[in-house]
């Protein structure tokens, strides 16, 4: 019996196979233990891809229709996002806080990386941090190593889900806010916490076109419509399955309060995006 390919299994999971092929695979599933393992493996990759926004529109819709009805899968999606967050923090670890690693007893003892020490929840008001409590936002922190005054810069890591506020004893941390294209959602504002005195906030806004020849204009306005920040000629960046444009916004300009972020292509016939954001200081 020939093992099914990952593509076939993925199509089976998403109910996109012709009936006869689906039935043949189901028969293999019942009679071959390896196929059950392969299917579970593919389901895990599919959950990860959904959780991290890597699926195309059709696959995403099929996933939501056929898999997401299962509470177990919904929980797995949450875990996948949290796991991805940990992986991204780990990738940033040496740059973010070398002291934690250097003094780690478990690391010195040759044990696994000190996972438990990572989520040091920042409460200190002098820490520049952002917590994207909103569903539409993802936060990625990295050490503030001489941020360039450019509005366009590729990321070392794909954006990750927001979880907590990061090490409390790191000063000069720059926050990144990611706005996902499919989560603009009406007029509901998403809360973002930015500490007073934040130097720069990296804002990444997802687009649906990866056409690198396109340029975008990004603007932030306050409730009265007054323009607080704008940047033009932003080129899309592709990273980790996302396509986004990016701008560095001075924290002082962002301020606090309800903000509207707009992303408009500098060409006709291409979709534009609008997000509502409520910028607040961190809770005490």
């Amino acid at each position, binding site marked *: 019996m020939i093992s099914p390919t990952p593509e076939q299994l993925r199509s*089976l999971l998403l*109910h996109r196979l012709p009936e006869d092929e689906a039935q043949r695979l*189901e*028969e293999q*599933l*019942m*009679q071959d*233990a390896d196929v*059950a*393992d392969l*299917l*579970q*493996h593919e389901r*895990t*990759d599919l959950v*990860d*891809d959904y*959780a*991290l926004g*890597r699926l195309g529109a059709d696959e995403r819709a099929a996933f*939501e*229709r056929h*898999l*997401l*009805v*299962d*509470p*177990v*899968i*919904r*929980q797995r*999606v*949450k*875990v*996948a996002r*949290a*796991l*991805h*967050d*940990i*992986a*991204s923090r*780990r*990738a940033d670890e040496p740059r973010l806080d070398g002291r934690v690693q250097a003094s780690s007893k478990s690391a010195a003892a040759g*044990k*696994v*990386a000190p*996972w*438990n020490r*990572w*989520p040091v929840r920042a409460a200190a008001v002098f820490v520049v941090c952002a917590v994207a*409590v*909103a*569903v539409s936002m993802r936060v990625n922190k990295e050490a503030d190593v001489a941020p360039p005054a450019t509005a366009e810069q590729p990321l070392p890591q*794909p954006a990750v889900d927001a*979880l*907590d506020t990061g090490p409390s004893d790191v000063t000069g941390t720059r926050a990144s806010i990611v706005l996902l294209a499919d989560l603009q959602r009406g007029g509901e504002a*998403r809360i973002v916490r930015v500490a007073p005195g934040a130097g720069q906030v990296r804002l990444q806004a997802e687009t649906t076109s990866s056409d690198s020849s396109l340029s975008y204009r990004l603007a932030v306005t306050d409730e009265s419509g007054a323009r607080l920040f704008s940047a033009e000629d932003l080129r899309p960046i592709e990273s*980790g*399955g996302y396509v986004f444009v990016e701008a560095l916004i001075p924290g002082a300009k962002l301020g606090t309060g309800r903000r509207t972020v707009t992303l408009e292509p500098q060409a006709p016939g291409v979709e534009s995006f609008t997000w509502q954001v409520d910028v607040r200081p961190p809770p005490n």
Partner: protein
Amino acid sequence: MTADASADTSNSGRSRELSESAFQALLERLREEGPSPQVTYETLRKRLIAFFRLHVPTQAEALADEALDRMARRVHEGTPVRNVYLYALGIGRLLVRESRARSVREDTAARDATLFGDTEADVVAREALHDALLACMDGLPPDGADLIVEYYSGGSGVVRIEKRRQLAERRGLALNALRNRALRLRDMLENCIAQRLAARDGSPPPHTEDD
């Protein structure tokens, strides 16, 4: 197989206890499949659950049990079953059809349920999940946390395939062996998280895909 299985539709909706004699008859038939009929029974059940997860995920385990009950009754009645796996699948397909006919379509607003909002309860839930994840990663076998992070953070598509190939090479493992190890670790991790969250909420541990 199909004709025999079709006869089971008459039992649709009934939840009869499997009689001891029917169960023994099924075990007797399963003895022909290998030295341990109990092991074959569990294998059949696991595969049926995998099948039902494709079609009726929220009822996968209950339907797997129902399929085995029906199969036992048919065997007990003297129905010849040439291939137990395909016979079980035939019953499974009927159960899927019955289940779909019964059930009201579930709302795909489920998508929102995978996302954390900005309410206080959501913030607490998100932190609880994060804490559970970290604690459970600490509890994995040595090197397990490293492996799981590396294996599942390789992007998508061909990039993911290539990174996993390189990882297997570095660890001196065949790709299949690495895949199975990562999958086992991921199952352990997710089961651990489910247990911790259930303990925190004071609720019984939920079913996981590894059950």
